[in-house]
């Protein structure tokens, strides 16, 4: 049971990051390889935010966590926006390799920038803010759910609900869906496609930053390369669920998270990535479009 809860909360975080991959893929048809780095930047930004608040205010209070989370989300969104403007916008409409290569380069640049500018070593999440959450327990069906896990599950649900409301219920969200159906047509009917795409990056980045904040508390330490493997797994989740498909990303994230914790528990954590890779290959063989993906026809 505890394994399930661990797996679910891990999966919820993968789902948050996977959403960013899937949204960008849906609208631009490219793998935003640097998305994992946005997640990492969210982690660092949260620590920076907490440190700045604690220093300037002088005393610490749990509410600072909220402020730091907002700071992290804003900063990561700004990074996401800047990425799109600098490295991707010019490459729209060129061969599929061009934006992908640019994204990989960007991912390396961001990682190494943080390594050089901040540190090569791990940095700690201030324990003061995370400890009460970790120590507080809720017994449930013979397992103990920590307050942090509740927070993770809760905020993931809230963020996803906000996202669903946004894309299904608001004008901008509908514009976004239209743009991912047919970008040219959306532009012709007066949707500001550039801005919608930028917005997609901003929203995806905010979700990733939210995930980053939660993970940084969960793990307690972070390093500049935190986004690489995490991003890879989140992307796997997006593929698993059917890339471009938003509920699919959530489902895929949960499956990946559960699978990872179950493997660690029953086989050994050294094998979890091998199991995940096997799972990805199986899905690609059995259901190339992912679990919830539909067949999309190539326009001829």
């Amino acid at each position, binding site marked *: 049971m505890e394994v399930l809860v661990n797996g679910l909360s891990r999966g919820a975080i993968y789902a948050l990051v996977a959403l960013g991959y899937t949204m960008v893929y849906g609208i631009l048809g490219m*793998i935003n390889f640097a998305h994992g780095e946005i997640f990492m930047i969210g982690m*660092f930004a949260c620590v*920076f935010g*907490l*440190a*700045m608040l*604690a*220093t300037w205010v002088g005393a*610490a209070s749990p509410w600072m966590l909220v402020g730091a989370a907002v700071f992290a989300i804003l*900063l990561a969104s*700004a*990074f996401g926006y*800047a990425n799109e*403007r600098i*490295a991707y*916008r*010019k490459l*729209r*409409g*060129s*061969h*599929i*390799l*061009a934006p*992908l*290569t*640019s994204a*990989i*380069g*960007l*991912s*390396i*640049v961001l*990682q*190494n920038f*943080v390594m*050089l500018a*901040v540190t090569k070593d791990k*940095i700690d999440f*201030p324990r*003061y*803010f995370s400890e009460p959450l970790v120590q507080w327990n809720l017994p449930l069906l013979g397992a103990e759910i920590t307050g942090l896990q509740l927070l993770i599950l809760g905020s993931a649900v809230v963020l996803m609900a906000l996202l669903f409301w946004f894309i299904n219920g608001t004008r901008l969200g509908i514009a976004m869906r239209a743009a991912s159906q047919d*970008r040219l047509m959306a*532009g*012709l009917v007066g949707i500001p*496609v*550039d801005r919608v795409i930028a917005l997609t990056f901003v929203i995806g980045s905010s979700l990733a930053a939210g995930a980053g904040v939660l993970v940084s508390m969960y793990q307690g330490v972070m390093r500049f390369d935190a986004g690489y493997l995490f991003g*890879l797994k989140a*992307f*796997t989740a997006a*593929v698993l669920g059917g890339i471009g498909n938003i509920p699919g990303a959530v489902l895929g994230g949960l499956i990946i998270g559960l699978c990872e914790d179950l493997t660690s528990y029953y086989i050994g954590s*050294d*094998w979890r*990535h*091998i199991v995940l*890779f096997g799972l*990805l*290959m199986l899905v*690609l063989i059995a259901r*190339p479009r992912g679990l919830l993906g539909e067949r999309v026809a190539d326009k001829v």
Partner: protein
Amino acid sequence: MADQSPTAKSGTPWSLALLVAVITAPFIWLKVKYDFRTGLSTATFDPARGWSLIAGLLPVVLGGLALWLALRWLCALPQLRTLFTTCSSRINEHPVLRHAGVVLLCTTILACAFFADNKVLSMGVFVFLYGIQALGLNITVGMTGLLVLGYAGFFSVGAYVFAILAHSQPWFSWWMALPIAAVVAGGVGWLVGLPCLRLRGDYLAIVTLGFAESFRELMRNLPALSGGDKGLVIPAAAKIGAFAGMNRLQACYLATALCLAVLVLVVHRLYHSRIGRAWRAIKADETAAAAMGISVVQMKLMAFTLSAGLAGIAGVLYAGYAGFVDPSTCAFEQSVLVLAMVILGGLGSIPGALLGSAILYLVPTLLRDQFPQVSEYRLLLFGSIMVLMMLFRPQGLLGKTKGGA
């Protein structure tokens, strides 16, 4: 997906630069200190660190810019241009000239084996090793248009196949491993490629990346077979050894050079055959290629298998030279390095891939002696090269100019 988004416009560089300055500021100027006792972090404004970072980056940025401008200036010189075009057309008209050039190049490389000093020779070995890898990766990425992100995974399959065989069979030697590793790495490539090459788009990139990560983990988890984290030391008898009066280094140099030469010939011939044309057609337009009777999946698989096989050969040569393998041979960094070489040199161009590998290996290696900090900025540099090349010169240094200009 070719679309001309009607609203796409170029950015406003200054506001973007300002945005970048603002968002990177916390990373550059802040120093965060963690206090174990209170469990709190504090942030201080730390200009010294920020300036030192900028001071460290500045020479790299300026150097790169200077190099770029110098290249642009050289390329734009009308005399040089006409010289180049007349030369190349002469060479195209007279195959004798081209053959003479190839012979000259080969003799120079051969002569180096006997007259150059050890430092040059060992750099030569790596240039050729990266050359083989860039050549192989160029088949998939450059010619067929499939992105492979875990190329080092196949390299290390080759290296491990060799190491494991050499450990179990005392009579085993490196040259026997060449065909075996090529076949095994190619076979693994085929298996990895099979499920994702049926799909359109860029699944291959992520699947190969996942493969490289998984393979590394597998090798770490099987200490009995692969020596775990420590890796395997190749028995002296199996390594590339001294022969015919040459020392070991000279032998390695010649062996890698010979392999590279043979493989260049192989890829060159494929490039100009029906298979190469099919690859290039697939890169340009998959649907149209299929409508012209090309079995797209089969051709893609072939390209990818071949590419993985070349990586396997490079892996054997590397292990035969270095004398050991460990899980770090399939690090992401290695895959990215080779990818950056292919992109820099020019996607789809064989001389471009070789040039790119020489530049990206030699420049950081030569600079490392003078400026030790270069090795820290190495990856940052590769990443920037990938982004900047895509933005400003997607066809690479030696690629053909778009629009047939």
